[in-house]
């Protein structure tokens, strides 16, 4: 600007002040800046647990499903003595060998059986005097789906002490249970997301109201709506990042502890422990929270200012 003929009122040219991070709206000093990170930390924590729970339940169901696909078990009741039991098992093996639908049979030894029952019975599961049924693991031939027709009936007819189990009775219930867990966890993740968005909308609208005069001034000086939105967006992202990292650390600690507990549970819930995929999904939560926060703040500001116009 030309200012010919107007001497400076100041004897010296001033030193330019050191630049600082400047925000036209003092959003960082709002009350929301104090509680929002904690709220987001809590929501990210909940979302983290729910997400890992959903992934774990999915893995569990898949494991149960695929692990028992094409498998049957024949349960042979113990006889009065070992010889009688052995005779019954022999008859069962002969019966199964005659079926073309079956490719392989394997009698579970006493030790394997004891191992399966140990979580419930403890060391006594290995007690040889315990009258346990003999289990025969049956693998169906390739291409055979489900129990061959009439196989169970014929087995029970020929060997009344034997019973065919296709696992579907309890497997179906278990898979339903795992799927329910998965749905609940997914619902929790969605609810947490919705709660985050609603909270941010409320906080942003409050900020717009608190700083109405400054925003009006910025508009009078030629600020576009997206300039104002950018200030809210940046602030929301910063708070979400801070909260998201705290939530991530908290969820990580809890999951680490859970992993230790599950591992010490002697395989009661094999496959439920967090995997690298789970940890990666968990690490994605803070950036996701930042993105959700920034976009919600932006859209709320742009929508509100457009309505005010």
């Amino acid at each position, binding site marked *: *600007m*030309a*200012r*010919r*003929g*107007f001497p*400076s*009122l*100041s004897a*010296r*040219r*001033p*030193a*330019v*002040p050191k630049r600082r991070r*400047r925000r*036209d709206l*003092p959003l960082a*000093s709002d009350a929301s800046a104090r509680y929002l990170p904690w709220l987001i930390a809590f929501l990210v924590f909940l979302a983290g647990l729910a997400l890992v729970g959903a992934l774990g339940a999915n893995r569990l169901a898949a494991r149960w499903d695929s692990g028992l696909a094409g498998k049957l078990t024949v349960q042979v009741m113990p006889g009065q003595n070992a010889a009688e039991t052995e005779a019954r098992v022999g008859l069962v093996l002969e019966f199964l060998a005659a079926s073309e639908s079956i490719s392989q049979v394997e009698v579970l030894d006493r030790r394997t059986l004891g191992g399966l029952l140990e979580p419930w019975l403890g060391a006594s599961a290995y007690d040889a005097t315990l009258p346990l049924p003999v289990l025969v693991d049956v693998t169906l031939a390739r291409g055979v789906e489900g129990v061959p027709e009439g196989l169970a009936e014929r087995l029970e007819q020929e060997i009344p002490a034997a019973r065919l189990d296709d696992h579907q009775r309890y497997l179906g219930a278990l898979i339903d249970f795992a799927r329910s867990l998965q749905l609940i966890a997914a619902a929790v993740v969605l609810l947490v997301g919705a709660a985050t968005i609603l909270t941010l909308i409320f906080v942003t609208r409050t900020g717009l109201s608190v700083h109405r*005069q*400054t925003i009006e*001034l*910025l*508009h*009078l*000086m*030629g*600020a*576009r*709506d997206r*300039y104002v939105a950018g200030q809210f967006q940046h602030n929301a992202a910063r708070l979400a990042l801070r909260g998201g990292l705290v939530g991530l650390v908290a969820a990580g600690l809890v999951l680490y502890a859970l992993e230790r507990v599950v591992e010490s549970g002697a395989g009661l819930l094999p496959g439920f422990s967090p995997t690298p995929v789970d940890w990666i999904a968990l690490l994605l939560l803070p950036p996701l929270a930042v993105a959700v926060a920034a976009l919600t703040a932006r859209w709320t500001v742009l929508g509100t200012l*457009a309505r005010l*116009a």
Partner: protein
Amino acid sequence: MVRLDDVALRYGEGPEVLSGVTCHLEPGSFHFLVGHSGAGKSSFLRLLNLGQRPTRGRLMLFGRDVARLSREDRAVMRRRMGVVFQDFRLIAHLTAFENVALPLHLTGERGGAIDSKVSELLSWVGLADCLDSLPATLSGGQQQRVAIARAVVGRPSLLLADEPTGNVDDRIAMRLMFLFEEMHRNGTTVVVATHNETLVGRFAHPRLRLEGGTLRIVPAVARAAGGAA
């Protein structure tokens, strides 16, 4: 530059504070806006800085009908204006330097250009020692000078000043008027609202006199005293 045809303004359901205002301000002109307190000077300026829409009539700014402007267009148009508010309206948490730099940030200027323009201008208005001061620590007169520096730093095409010398002594008032004069000479259209008839009398510019909500144009008096020319 500015054209009003039978423009009226009312707030809500209240009476018209401006009624049948018709005038045309040529580009590069300088007008004083005078009238007693409550005559509608601030309302008139609010119309010009797009802070209010006319309730009747047509307002043209920079050759465009403001009624047809989009929100985006209004923002762009406002960047071509500098406004000195009667109540200064400085942003409390920003320093004097940052307040003055704000319009430059809004137009996308960066770093060094902002530093030199802002520090030079603040120095010129006598605030070289207050660059880092927050508005609350400045006197009324100092705040007013910051507000004026903020209004002119972007070299606006239209400068609107509402009582810009109300809180400063005569010496500073004259300096600030010289600044407006200089901008006028460089092509800026200037409208200065004031009730200071003594100050107005020192400059040979036409007056827009508001009385009872209506506007009358008083031609320039052919003299320029007090070293204003």
